[in-house]
């Protein structure tokens, strides 16, 4: 136990002495959490709409006005011709072009069906889909007004059966995307900092030659590994604390569940991540290699974590892979506990999986670390 203390002391000294690293470890994650949480949103707003009006009547102007009144659209200038509008699309200055046909007002007043041309830049397919829905919404509500205007004289309305649906959004009434993203990004930052640092750790001593010096001492393998893990474990918990405070104070993310439970899970989770880092460190010869492998896994873990895109949307094989992904569990748990207030038994399954992985990985790490070649 005393021996481990000496290693921990030395690791902490090295961490705090490195003036170049301290801001990267502490300031950069905080800044990123503060800034990037705002970036992660699927809300589509400010859709730039350009229109070509061949009709030029009060009705066509009314349609444009109802686009202008909507929160989603920003109506740009009028284009004089289809070709001009197309060019604006080419150079990327508009998202949607609306073309109002000739005789638009006349057809409507006669009760004929008239067709609007809508051209959407669909390179980002998901965004285009949403834009299309919004265009349709605006046009539908406009056409209801028009119908009322022209059909009010056409006699009594027939009473139709109606299924009224009342949506209720639990846990996040305003559908605030930040509430969803902040905990997820926090997980990511905690994971990245601890994984990168721990995977560089042993291999760094290999490169500088100090590892050989340690290998000729009578230190036990488990003492060495625990001594190396502990400082980063503390670091991860400190980062989590800072992140939670920011989430609460700056983003007003609710913290419904038990904070102790969150720390319990993080404590176990960090053991897994650090074990993973040291494993990488064990099997590489240079920091460059270690970093590269850590980076490879982090990117795949992020993409398959359900952080940015829901896991349910993935195909079956990809969903199966996510079961091996530690970030997936942490993202899931932090959202469950913070936003829904899930309790110990709700997350017991995930907790035991992570604990199992952590145990297995650390056994492999200690076992695979060879003082003798």
């Amino acid at each position, binding site marked *: 136990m005393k021996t481990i203390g000496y*290693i921990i002391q030395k690791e902490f*000294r*090295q961490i705090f002495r490195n003036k170049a690293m301290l801001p990267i470890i502490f300031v950069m994650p905080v800044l990123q959490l503060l800034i990037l949480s705002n970036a992660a949103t699927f809300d589509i707003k400010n859709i730039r709409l350009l229109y070509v009006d061949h009709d030029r009547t009060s009705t066509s102007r009314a349609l444009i006005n109802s686009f202008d009144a909507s929160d989603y659209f920003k109506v740009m200038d009028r284009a004089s011709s289809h070709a001009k509008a197309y060019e604006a699309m080419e150079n990327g200055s508009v998202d949607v072009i609306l073309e109002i046909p000739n005789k638009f007002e006349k057809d409507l007043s006669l009760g004929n069906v008239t067709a609007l041309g809508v051209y959407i830049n669909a390179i980002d397919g998901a965004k285009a889909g949403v834009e299309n829905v919004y265009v349709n919404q605006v046009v539908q509500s406009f056409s209801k007004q028009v119908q009322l205007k022209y059909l009010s004289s056409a006699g009594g309305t027939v009473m139709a059966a109606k299924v009224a649906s009342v949506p209720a959004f639990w846990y996040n009434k305003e559908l605030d995307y930040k509430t969803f993203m902040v905990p997820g990004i926090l997980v990511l930052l905690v994971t990245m900092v601890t994984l990168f640092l721990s995977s560089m750790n042993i291999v760094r001593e290999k490169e*500088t030659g100090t590892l050989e*010096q340690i290998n*000729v*001492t*009578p230190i036990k393998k488990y003492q060495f590994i625990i001594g190396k893990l502990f400082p980063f474990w503390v670091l991860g918990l400190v980062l989590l604390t800072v992140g939670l405070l920011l989430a609460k104070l700056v983003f007003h993310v609710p913290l419904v569940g038990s904070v102790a439970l969150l720390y319990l899970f993080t404590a176990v989770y960090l053991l897994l991540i650090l074990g993973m880092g040291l494993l990488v460190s064990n099997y590489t010869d240079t920091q460059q290699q270690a970093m590269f492998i850590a980076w490879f896994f982090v990117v795949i873990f992020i993409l398959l974590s359900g952080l940015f895109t829901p896991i349910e949307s993935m195909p079956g094989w990809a969903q199966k892979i996510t079961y091996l992904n530690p970030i997936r569990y942490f993202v899931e748990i932090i959202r469950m506990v913070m936003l829904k207030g899930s309790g110990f038994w709700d997350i017991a399954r995930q907790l035991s999986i992570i604990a199992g992985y952590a145990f297995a990985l650390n056994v492999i790490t200690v076992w695979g670390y060879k*003082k*003798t070649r």
Partner: protein
Amino acid sequence: MKETEKVIVVNDLTKKFGSFTAVDQISFETRKGEIFGFLGANGAGKTTAMKMLIGISKPTSGEAIVNGFDVKTQPEKVKKTIGYMSQKFSMYDDLNIMENITFFGGIYGLSRKEIKERGEAVIEKLGLREVAKKQVGSLPLGWKQKLAFSVALLHEPKVVFLDEPTGGVDPITRRQFWEMIYAEADKGTTIFVTTHYMDEAEYCNRVSIMVEGKIEALDSPKNLKKQFDASSMDEVFQKLARNVE
């Protein structure tokens, strides 16, 4: 030579990497308080042999007993009783002198009190008081090496292994370094040192010369010079190398 205990006993020690034999059935013994020179050209197998003796490389065959422990089966016990200084400076550049001493003393199981006393003694002896708070990385190479040697002796090992300890150091520092080695040997510590400076070989009690994984000569410098009819160890070495070719 007076009757003393055997500290290192090596019999037919061999290390193979695939089909390449780096160390080929070497055998020798060293005694308490002896300065044992381990010579050879680069790639002759010196470092590989030494790594087996300090328990960080497993022998392919043969045996080696260091301080009564078998390096094959009890490497961790061997490590408790030896000191080691590698050719690459291997202390933490970003820690200061006392912090390095605390760390290495700590993992050898010294008590806080012992670490403090011995650390102070080292700083005093080397005259490093003024730079004690400086990060080790900023010290000149000569100081670093003297410090590394002192740290390797901190836990008072019975044998200390030095792997080319004076590489890249100026002649004056080299001299001072050898004075430190003599002083330690007088206290009864066995010194096992590899070097390729032939003048340093003259300082050793006994010298072994390795060529292509084998020990080709082993005796005191005086006897070796007589045996090869040479005026210096350098000449001995040249003749040996030529013979093998």
